[in-house]
């Protein structure tokens, strides 16, 4: 067997000031040319492991490390990070924090110039990185002008230009929209398959893991708890769920069909499963109607937000909102979806008064918002920003929850009951006097939502509530919103996650180029496949699989629906 390119032997690490082992008893070999995915819930120790691999731990981050890591024959404890850098690169989560150059070219050359290469060699590497990663067009652009996906591509280019044998990616797509994710994954795949670089990818986007990985290791509480080929790991659906992981829908249904003897092995992608199911003999075209009466109930209540003929553009740019009219009724749970730049955030920020459309009218709870300040409007309509760190101001969790009601002049005694209830709902009872910065990202996101809920607004708007969260946290956040919706509040979310749209929302508004393209129940909207394509929106895997099979209805929204319908058709046949 070939010698491993990375050899990890019984590694433990405890951060300075902590007692808990962030990673514990890690032993792992990685082989040349391999595409290894490390996954697991937030706080499992994945990022700590990444930083151990290139020597940031123990040279830069303080703490106690035991065990040894050998990378291309170098013991990471004996070589400083800059000596490891030519052999092992690390791409971080936040693209903004890793672009230093004033242009893309300047950024890409940062690594090679640090390694002491002369002008000619640096230029050769710039050309190679720009060419191989297909980002030549960005060469002269300023990093701050790029989209999230482009920024991350450039960050990868900067590491790639150092021509390392191994590149580690620490959740490189967690802050990107689906388009950006696809772009970055395609680059990572090429780096591995075409250019032969060994990849260690930390990721909890399970769909992509299944597509690209040779091997998957699952971490939990600092330990590797599952490790094997992609197929081996994804067969353990129950164990993955136990660990708070989301199993790709295609694999979930594949496992069910394999159990029933319909298919022999579980394909690792939706396309492969479609091919297998299409080849099954003797299935008639008798689509069964999926029962979704509850979701189909139209909200008959009165409107809470009415936007009419909104036009908005930033100075000198094309219209971000181009004559948009939309009404949200009391009790709606609506997802606003579409590519970045489609106008989703602009529409929502106009509704809360942060942006002033050049023309049009907005009524919130029957009142024209032009007559009110944003602060006055906040009593009726709450807005949770995408980044929790940009909306937490106080020194304790409890103060944060009282911040809004206090500003609205509400009596503390009267607010107390609601604050206590919300504290429980967001699962932060134990932390009421904790400095919010000490909470995990998921907890901070819940806190920022709680801080809006304590203001008791009629409408709650949440901008990408689950971005960067693991599946367990995603479900917690969405359940919290569902609870709010069940209490009669109107909930509007901006999201790129179609699976949660199908699970939780009764209405979907699809935006494209500053216009509303589609508006209706998820079951109706996701059947408009061709129209959705123009907005770069793709239905979930399970809907896509059903739509590809002539004998299945085209409006399936969940794995259970698919399974029930498929089983009924098989029995009928």
């Amino acid at each position, binding site marked *: 067997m070939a010698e491993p390119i990375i050899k990890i032997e019984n590694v433990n690490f405890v951060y300075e000031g902590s007692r808990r082992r962030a990673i514990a008893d890690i032993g792992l070999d990685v082989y040349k040319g391999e595409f290894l995915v490390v996954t697991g819930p937030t706080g499992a120790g994945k990022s700590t492991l990444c*930083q151990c691999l*290139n020597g*940031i731990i123990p040279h*830069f*981050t303080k703490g106690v490390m035991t065990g040894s890591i050998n990378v291309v024959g170098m013991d990471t404890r004996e070589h*400083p*990070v*800059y000596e490891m*850098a*030519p052999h092992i*690169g*690390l791409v*971080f989560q*936040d693209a*903004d*924090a*890793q*672009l*230093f*150059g*004033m*242009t893309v070219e*300047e950024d890409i050359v*940062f*690594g*090679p*110039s*640090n*390694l*002491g*290469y*002369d*002008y000619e060699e640096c230029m050769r590497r710039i050309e190679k990185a720009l060419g191989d990663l297909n980002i030549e067009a960005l060469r002269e652009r300023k990093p*701050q002008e790029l989209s999230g996906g482009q920024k991350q591509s450039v960050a990868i280019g*900067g590491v790639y230009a*150092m021509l390392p044998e191994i590149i580690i990616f620490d959740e490189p797509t967690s802050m990107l929209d689906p388009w950006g994710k696809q772009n970055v994954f395609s680059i990572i795949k090429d780096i591995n398959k075409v250019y032969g670089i060994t990849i260690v990818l930390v990721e909890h986007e399970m769909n992509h893991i299944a597509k690209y990985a040779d091997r998957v290791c699952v971490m939990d509480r600092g330990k590797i708890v599952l490790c094997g080929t992609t197929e081996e790991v994804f067969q353990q659906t129950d164990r993955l769920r136990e660990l708070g992981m989301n199993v790709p829908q295609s694999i979930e249904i594949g496992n069910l069909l394999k159990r029933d003897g319909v298919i022999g092995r579980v394909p690792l992608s939706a396309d492969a499963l479609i091919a297998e199911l299409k080849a099954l003999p003797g299935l008639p075209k008798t689509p069964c109607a999926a029962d979704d009466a509850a979701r189909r109930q139209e909200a008959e209540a009165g409107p809470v937000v009415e936007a009419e003929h909104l036009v908005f553009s930033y100075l000198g740019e094309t219209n971000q909102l181009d004559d948009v009219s939309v009404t949200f009724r009391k009790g709606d749970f609506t997802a606003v979806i579409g590519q970045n730049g489609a106008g989703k955030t602009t529409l929502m920020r106009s509704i*809360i008064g*942060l942006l002033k459309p050049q023309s049009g009218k907005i009524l919130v709870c029957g009142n024209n918002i032009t007559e009110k*300040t*944003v*602060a006055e409007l*906040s*009593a009726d309509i*709450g*807005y949770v*920003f995408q980044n929790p*760190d*940009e*909306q937490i*101001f*106080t020194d304790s969790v409890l103060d944060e929850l009282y*911040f809004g*009601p*206090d*500003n*609205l002049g509400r009596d503390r005694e009267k607010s107390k009951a609601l604050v206590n209830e919300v504290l429980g709902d967001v699962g932060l009872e134990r932390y009421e006097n904790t400095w919010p*910065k000490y909470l995990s990202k998921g907890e901070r996101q819940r806190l920022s939502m709680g*801080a*809006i809920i304590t*203001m008791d607004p009629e409408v709650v708007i949440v901008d990408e509530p689950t971005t960067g969260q693991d599946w367990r946290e995603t479900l917690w956040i969405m359940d919290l919103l569902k609870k709010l919706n069940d209490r009669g509040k109107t909930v509007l979310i901006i999201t790129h996650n179609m699976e949660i749209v199908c699970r939780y929302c009764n209405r979907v508004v699809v935006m494209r180029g500053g216009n509303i393209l589609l508006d209706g129940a998820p079951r109706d909207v996701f059947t408009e496949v061709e129209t959705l394509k123009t907005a770069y929106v793709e239905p979930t895997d399970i809907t896509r699989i059903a739509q590809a099979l002539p004998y299945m209805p085209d409006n399936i929204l969940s794995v259970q629906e698919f399974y029930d319908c498929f089983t009924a058709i098989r029995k009928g046949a």
Partner: protein
Amino acid sequence: MLVDYRKLDTWVHRLNPKVSMLVVLFVIVASIVWTNVLFLAALTLVLYLVGVSCRFPWKQIAWFLKFALFASILILIIQAFTIDQSLIETEWIRETVLFYVLPNHKGAVMLGGLLYGLAASLKIYMVVFAIAILGYSVPPTEFVRGLGKLPFASKQLTFIFSTAWRFIPIIRGQALNLMNAQKTRGMELEKGKLGEKLKKMMRIVTPLLSNSLEIGSDIALTMEARGFGATKKSKFVRPGKTSPGAIVACVAVLLLIAALIYTSALGIGVM
């Protein structure tokens, strides 16, 4: 930042960056050696006309101009009453009293003081106009590249400069988001007395500072991962080509600066 770089095709944008930087150096030297209001006013006017000709966005520095106007009035008042006469070389200006604000020839308002205050104000405007037009017409990359070529500038210094330029808009964006988040939580940022407003601002400063520290820490990690510190001086120096015209212009501006210093020593441009 006073104003951001904009990529336009005006004669000022087309100037060689080295020439532009030397012109700014000329303005700075003039602001130091000249005290004559007429000279300073003429140069300020020239700079204003240069700004107009290169479509400089005056609106963007309106906030500063308002602040500078307030500062100018303050300087004028203070100088008018408290001018140190020895600073003025021209005798009649030094000795002319415009009027008295108090009875019995007390509280003299001196012509020299007023002119000196006016000169000080013009110097502020002059330097600000010059630097703002430079920032507007020369790409930041040129500054950093120029800095990197200087023999005394370490890689760290160049890096500090470029990082600051790169991250200021991010921090500015975060500050704006924090303010927006406060408004959506019922905080009336624009209302209240100065003390109240300051207290509200403090609510933004704390998270901004903590977020900035986090960004700083992330940057440090990323730098390490990309080999920062492996060499002391980068060997990656772009071969820069300066056209003969630009060399002539640079020499001409340098000669002008020398002439400026020499003539001011002879009393030209001095009040």
